[in-house]
């Protein structure tokens, strides 16, 4: 009996690597622009900012990666992936070339709370390569079709050094866009860097975005989250209006295998986006 692929949630859809962009100086962060091989698959793939998909490299395995492109980018899907030397999939992925094929399952998970963000100011705080799904969100909000739905957008984004910043062209372009207030920083500058220097939480303290009618989206390594939540709470944000994207090792991505469970919620099904209030309830505030 043959299996209709869409009815089997474990089967990945074939995609081709259209373009690979090396994002950082260390060359361990690459953005893969993928196109579905089948039109039906492409049309069926509708996602919201914050969701992820399972990328598979044949014979190596699958990894959950946040979607970095905007939902309005109709012809392709982008993922920015870091290569870990201990990671079988990320290593295999980084060795691939344009034109080669991957598998894609998704979209999975919940999204950033776009409904809650409507009519409100959006504050985005991010560090390192956790910025990917927030980049998707910024592109989405800035799109002419959407901009009027949201209030002011303030972004604080930092990396360890200038070479490690992602999406450098877009960051530069957004500096000149009216509809968004960009604060890009690095932990430590270098020759030629004319931008800001300072840790993300420090810059957050300096920019002090208002919490009035605002929602905060915060993504970064656990240590950054720890030092970012407090300043936000101090300026009047409440746990219900601070959102982050959690990570756990995953396997099925569809709420069955139990691996990504945090306090009874599956990161793949009930997350990865959680409000800080939910995180306090799930883990006592630990990431």
């Amino acid at each position, binding site marked *: *009996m*043959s*299996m209709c*692929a869409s*009815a*089997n*949630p*474990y*089967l*990945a*859809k*074939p995609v081709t690597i259209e373009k690979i962009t090396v994002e950082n100086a260390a060359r361990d962060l690459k953005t893969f622009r993928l196109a579905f*091989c089948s039109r039906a698959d492409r049309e069926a793939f509708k996602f919201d900012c914050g969701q992820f998909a399972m990328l*598979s*490299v*044949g*014979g*190596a*395995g*699958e990894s959950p990666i946040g979607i970095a492109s905007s939902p309005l980018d109709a012809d392709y899907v982008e993922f920015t992936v870091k290569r*870990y030397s*201990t*990671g079988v999939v*990320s290593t295999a992925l980084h060795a691939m070339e344009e034109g080669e*094929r991957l*598998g894609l399952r998704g979209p999975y998970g919940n999204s950033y709370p776009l409904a809650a963000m409507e009519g409100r100011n959006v504050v985005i705080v991010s560090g390192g390569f956790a910025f990917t799904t927030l980049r998707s969100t910024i592109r989405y909000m800035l799109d002419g079709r959407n901009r009027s739905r949201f209030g002011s957008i303030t972004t604080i984004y930092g990396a360890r050094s200038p070479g490690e910043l992602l999406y450098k062209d877009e960051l530069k372009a957004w500096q000149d866009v009216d509809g968004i207030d960009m604060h890009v920083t690095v932990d430590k500058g270098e020759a030629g860097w004319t931008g800001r220097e300072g840790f993300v939480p420090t810059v957050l303290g300096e920019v002090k975005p208002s919490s009035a009618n605002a929602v905060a989206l915060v993504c970064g390594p656990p240590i950054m989250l720890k030092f970012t939540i407090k300043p936000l709470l101090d300026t009047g944000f409440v746990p219900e209006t601070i959102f982050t994207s959690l*990570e*756990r*090792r995953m*396997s*099925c991505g*569809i*709420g*069955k*295998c*139990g*691996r990504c*469970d*945090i*306090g*009874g919620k599956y990161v793949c099904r009930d997350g990865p986006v959680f409000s800080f209030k939910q995180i306090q309830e799930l883990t*006592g505030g630990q990431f």
Partner: protein
Amino acid sequence: MALGVISKEHLGKLIAAVSRTGRFLGPVDKGDGVCLTQVSAGDMLALDYVNFILPPKRMFFPRSEVIATHGSDGMTATPLPEGRVVLFGIRPCDVLSLVYLDKVFLDEKYADPYYRSRRDNAVIISLACRQPAPTCFCTSIKGSPAGKAGADILAVDIGDVLLLESVTATGEAFMAEYGKLLDKPSAEQVSSRQAQVAAADAKMARVSIDQATAKLRARFDAAAWDELTARCLGCGVCTFLCPTCHCFGLYDEQVGGQNRRVRAQDACAFPAFTLEASGHNPRTRQGMRMRHRMMHKFCYTAESFGEIFCVGCGRCIRSCPANLDIRETLTEVSK
């Protein structure tokens, strides 16, 4: 609801008849325990046992299976199993576990086709318990030695014969199909069944579970768990023998030039279960892992699916090499 009796001799004829068009699996004594095994004759069956070593989940969710292969133009699912399988002798506690596993594998959004086809192909004839073990506690968790939930037919062994009662339409159709091998039960046989079921029920020890879900939520304190589970070896036997434990992993492998996707059972008791490529592991201590296991089974599933995922079969109690006793743990955390 149909009732019928089948003599133990005719059971052999039933097995032969079913085996002509499908498979019949029943309890077979392997010397060091009873296993659900394919049989072709009645005399292969052992009817005097507490329970199978392994839970029936493996009939629907095997320890491992190749679910698909990767080709140049995408993935192809492994053909689904076909043909009817009659599973005879599963205890009511184990049958209830299938009802719970259905909630995980047969959810609306992402139903598992491999599990589904095996479930659809199976006719489950459960066998009521005559003599519960001291480690059984199904009546403390929504179960009963003659519980019907999840079975197609409930069989009760009343001596020379088995009294069969259909529970589902599938069960009724099955009994109609093999009606020639069944007799109408006498009033005596029906009351004999009643008495036996009541006797088994009465022998069951009671464990207080009612407060477990609420109390567990409140008792996330890590230190207490480290103490409670200090002797846990992290061996995973409880997980592999538990009828409802279903954590698994998907693995892509290259075997003999072919790329394939394997689904294999896993255990949250293992340290590497949540280990990330970065080296970070959210559950580094055995106490945290056992806490998670208990929380998942008695708290989280109750919150997500409305059911505590324990059926009181007692396998974890009997098989734990360090004698961790789930009844004691539940009593301790319910204080």
